[in-house]
């Protein structure tokens, strides 16, 4: 009886789920089956499997992979060293603050930093290196994306490391494992969940970036996100845009399954 009355608060929330979670997904699927004139067609899907779109999907994955990899390489040691500092939560807060500064502003900063007359080129010039255009290259794109994602990768890894029972590490050392073996066999496996959620929050957004590609990479790099934006807002071809979105959702589900399932199995 108490149950029934308590369902009241759920009402607006259920409406929200229906209207903004379920309906949009269905609408995207529906639109992916329409051509420009609103007739049913599978042409968009055929189009997606053409070589142009497949290449784009592959390069998008490649960039997302590189971005995630570099972010992880920077973030893991940072998170590890942070847990060793005296005021670790204070230092973690200092890592998080930059992530609260508007994304657009941080990206905009790099337009100046990487510019032809920017500080990086000025620095290189003092060593006698000719200034080159760093902006609009793969390097600048990946660098800025890694910069943006670093705090988001550090947080889950930091939390995992923070929860790690230090006696396990002492035990490994007492039993004769050296530093590298301890890390490889004890610390890393026990913090793999943090790494996985870090990868989740980096890889999926990296696949769908479009603002950074436009501002930093010019039109050199096209990701799945750029393509969706292009189809929806420039070409006004919602059918094709929705088709790409459908695939992006599918990739997302696959990535979630890959990085998520074991955590449930492992814990029980």
């Amino acid at each position, binding site marked *: 009886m108490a149950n029934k009355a308590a369902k009241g*608060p759920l009402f607006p929330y259920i409406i929200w789920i229906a209207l903004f979670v379920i309906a949009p997904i269905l*609408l995207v699927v529906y639109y992916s089956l329409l051509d420009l004139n609103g007739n049913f067609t599978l042409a968009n899907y055929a189009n997606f499997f053409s070589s142009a779109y497949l290449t784009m999907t592959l390069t998008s994955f490649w960039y997302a992979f590189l971005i995630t990899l570099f972010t992880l390489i920077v973030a893991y040691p940072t998170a590890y060293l942070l847990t060793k500092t005296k005021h670790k939560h204070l230092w973690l807060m200092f890592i998080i603050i930059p992530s609260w500064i508007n994304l657009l502003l941080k990206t905009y*900063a790099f337009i100046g930093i990487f510019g032809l007359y920017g500080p990086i080129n000025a620095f290189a010039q003092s060593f006698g290196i000719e200034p080159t255009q760093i902006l609009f290259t793969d390097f600048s794109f990946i660098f800025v994306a890694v*910069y943006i994602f670093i705090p988001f990768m550090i947080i889950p890894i930091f939390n995992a490391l923070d929860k790690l029972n230090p006696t396990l590490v002492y035990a490994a050392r007492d039993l004769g494992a050296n530093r590298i073996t301890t890390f490889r066999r004890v610390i890393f496996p026990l913090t793999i969940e943090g790494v996985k959620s870090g990868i989740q929050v980096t890889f999926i957004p990296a696949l769908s970036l479009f603002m950074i590609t436009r501002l930093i990479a010019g039109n050199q790099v096209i990701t799945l996100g750029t393509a969706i934006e292009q189809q929806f807002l420039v070409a006004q071809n919602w059918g094709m845009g929705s088709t790409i979105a459908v695939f992006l959702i599918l990739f997302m589900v696959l990535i979630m399954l890959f990085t998520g399932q074991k955590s449930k199995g492992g814990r029980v």
Partner: protein
Amino acid sequence: MTKLSPGARVYLGIVFIILYAPIFYLIFYSFNSGGTMNNFESFTLEHYQDVFDDSRLLVILINTVIIALLSGLIATVIGTLGAIGIVSVKNKKMRNSILSLNNVLIVSPDVVIGASFLILFTMIGVKLGFTSVLVSHIAFSIPIVVLMVLPKLLEMNTSLIDAAQDLGASKREVLTRVILPYIKPGIFAGFFMAITYSLDDFAVTFFVTGNGFSTLSVEIYSMARAGITLTVNAISGIVFIATVLIVVGYYFVTNRTKVCNTGVQE
């Protein structure tokens, strides 16, 4: 604990420098009287003056804040009620499927959310502008509020509710006098997160904003596409100060509620 080795200190130092350098770089050149971000001529506040003289920009700033506060508030109400409702669902399977649906918008890429909301609003016939942006921000903030409130509800001892009911509290009183005070820190955290989500959002807003309406992110994007203007630097200076104030304020508020809570329990 063990002291950090010099190498470790250098590494952390470099990471911190890289994280903060672009932000301070922006703010530094916001005081440059030359029009560029590469040589500093002399100190000036004219770019800040420009921001405050530009009434269009001010309207956009106000819009951004209004959208953030309003969407945060509404999302917090719906999300908190939703979390309370979810806890009352006793069927495990049902509860898990609601929670999975809850997380869809959190993990979905912004572009997909933006595009699908654009279709939705066009289908329903909502005019793109203030309403569509506000509704979208409410929509993507609700799940984060739920995730912030839910742990607090789950850790709450149900005998508290039983006790209140035994002592003759009505349903309403149980909610307002027992449940809400207990989960207050979670609600605060949810509200705060909703505001930051709203302030930081670019992609979704970019899709659902019409011609006449703009938020700060979208405006900075179009300014940045046109090239470097130090007005954007001045905006970043203002945003940085505001962000630091909000963060400090937030820590102040949460720490105080923590003290209050433990005070009540002991």
